[in-house]
């Protein structure tokens, strides 16, 4: 278990945050959430409802694409259909529990930027766009964000563009987990992964890092979690975001 990598910590953390019976969605470019949902459903959240872009409900994919999280393989094993438009509607009417989202920049309130680096109209880098996030993040019950790098360019005090804002509850990074405080809606440090430290996170974050009132030790990944993770993700698709 010493060779655990950031992708393992992130994926297991995502799985742990999914509660049993919740309706969970991820969109494009989301290999770790895709794996995490399957892991959670084999652990404590057997009745979680898995929704994704290809529109199958509760798919059990035999494998994952390393290139796409809209791949038809994510329909495998599903009994019924619930296309993307239905998923957005579900969130809009307050009936989607969890959405996994990401951002090129994330600020101290859990808002995200996927629109542009630099001004929106004259961008230095035009980013892909927020996909579902501007509609999902304010309407989903629990927004769980992640990033695959943790540095001051990504975690900023002020976003170049606020693509989406809303119900960000957790932000997971290769170094640890932020959780939003009920008090002032700011992200606070909730957990540090074994490969990092409060100091490293503080140094690499562009907004002020304070400990969350619920700050806790990261519970080591269990044998069961690891075995099921290997079973679910035999090809190691969870590492693909780090290549």
């Amino acid at each position, binding site marked *: 278990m010493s060779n655990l990598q950031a992708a393992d910590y992130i994926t297991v953390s995502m799985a742990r945050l999914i509660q049993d019976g919740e309706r969970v969605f991820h*969109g*494009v*470019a989301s*290999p770790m959430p895709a794996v995490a949902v399957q892991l959670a459903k084999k652990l404590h959240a057997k009745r979680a409802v898995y929704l994704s*872009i*290809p*529109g*199958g409900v509760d798919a059990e994919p035999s494998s994952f*694409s*390393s*290139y*796409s*999280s*809209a*791949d*038809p393989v994510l*329909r495998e094993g599903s009994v019924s*259909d619930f*296309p*993307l*438009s239905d998923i*957005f509607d579900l*969130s*809009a*009417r307050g009936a989607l529990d969890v959405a996994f989202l990401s951002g090129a920049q994330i600020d101290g309130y859990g*808002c995200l930027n*996927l*629109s542009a680096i630099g001004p*929106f*109209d*004259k*961008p*230095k*880098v*035009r*980013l*892909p*766009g*927020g*996909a*579902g*996030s*501007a*509609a*999902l993040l*304010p*309407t989903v019950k629990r927004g769980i964000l992640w990033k695959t790098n943790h540095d001051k360019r990504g975690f900023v005090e002020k976003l170049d*563009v*606020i*693509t*989406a*804002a*809303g119900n960000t509850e957790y932000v997971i990074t290769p170094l640890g987990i932020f959780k939003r405080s009920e008090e002032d809606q700011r992200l606070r440090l909730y957990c540090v992964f074994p490969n990092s430290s409060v100091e490293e996170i503080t140094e690499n974050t562009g907004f002020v890092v304070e400990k969350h009132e619920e700050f806790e030790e990261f519970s080591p990944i269990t044998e069961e979690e690891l075995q099921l993770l290997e079973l679910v993700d035999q090809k190691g698709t969870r590492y*693909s*975001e780090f290549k």
Partner: protein
Amino acid sequence: MSKQISLSEAASVVSDGALLALGGNALHRSPVAFVTELIRQGKKNLSVIKTAGALDVDLLATAKSLESVYGGYIGFEMFGLAQSYRKGVQNQEIVAHEHACASVIAGLRASIYGVPFQPINGFQGSELPELTGQIKYVDCPFTGKKTAVVPALRPDYTVIHVNIADEQGNAYIEGAVFEDLIMVRAAEKVIVTAEKIISSDSWTVRPQVPGFLVESVVLAEQGAVPGSCAPSYSIDKEAVIDYLKDPNSYLEKLKEAEIHV
């Protein structure tokens, strides 16, 4: 009376400046063959409606055929950014009418319902409404609640690529329908490209697209390559990587290939 025509005939009806909705999502079941034919015919100033676009949108950007995009996400997922699209926007040659995927759908729904706008629950806290002008607000006359609304998005053409069609326009999508059925209903006219064309009396599955909504049908085997068209083929990852390394030379090869079809 058959609606089946050739790829070049079908593309030829699209005018410069047209607004096109393209089916599929990301690198899956998007009408790549049709887009390539548009480029071969030198179409200019096209605008595209798409929830999540990839090669279809970026090819048009590479060819300098793209004026604007109404979309939620334009990128190649784990392959990386849409290089020509992003450069086009950065150089202010392409306008990014950035939507949420859900508001693209809302705008299409307004067209389906014959109304000028569609309310949507979203965008709270986002700067996109003021930056793009694509979202405004009205007060609900029943509850007084301030409500975000999106203008109708009415494609001149919706182009979808499907698994099976017949010569009357009935079309069957195997598996993920993505936003195709919404785009079909929202459009002024619909063009279907298909992996396979069968006779109208030989259906063994129920087509989701009724033929009467479709203007023309095109046989386009491998019409979504190098993207996927399940269950026939998956993403050709080498081809996508090649494209992103040098979009221009990839496009040149693609245009050549089309000519010899």
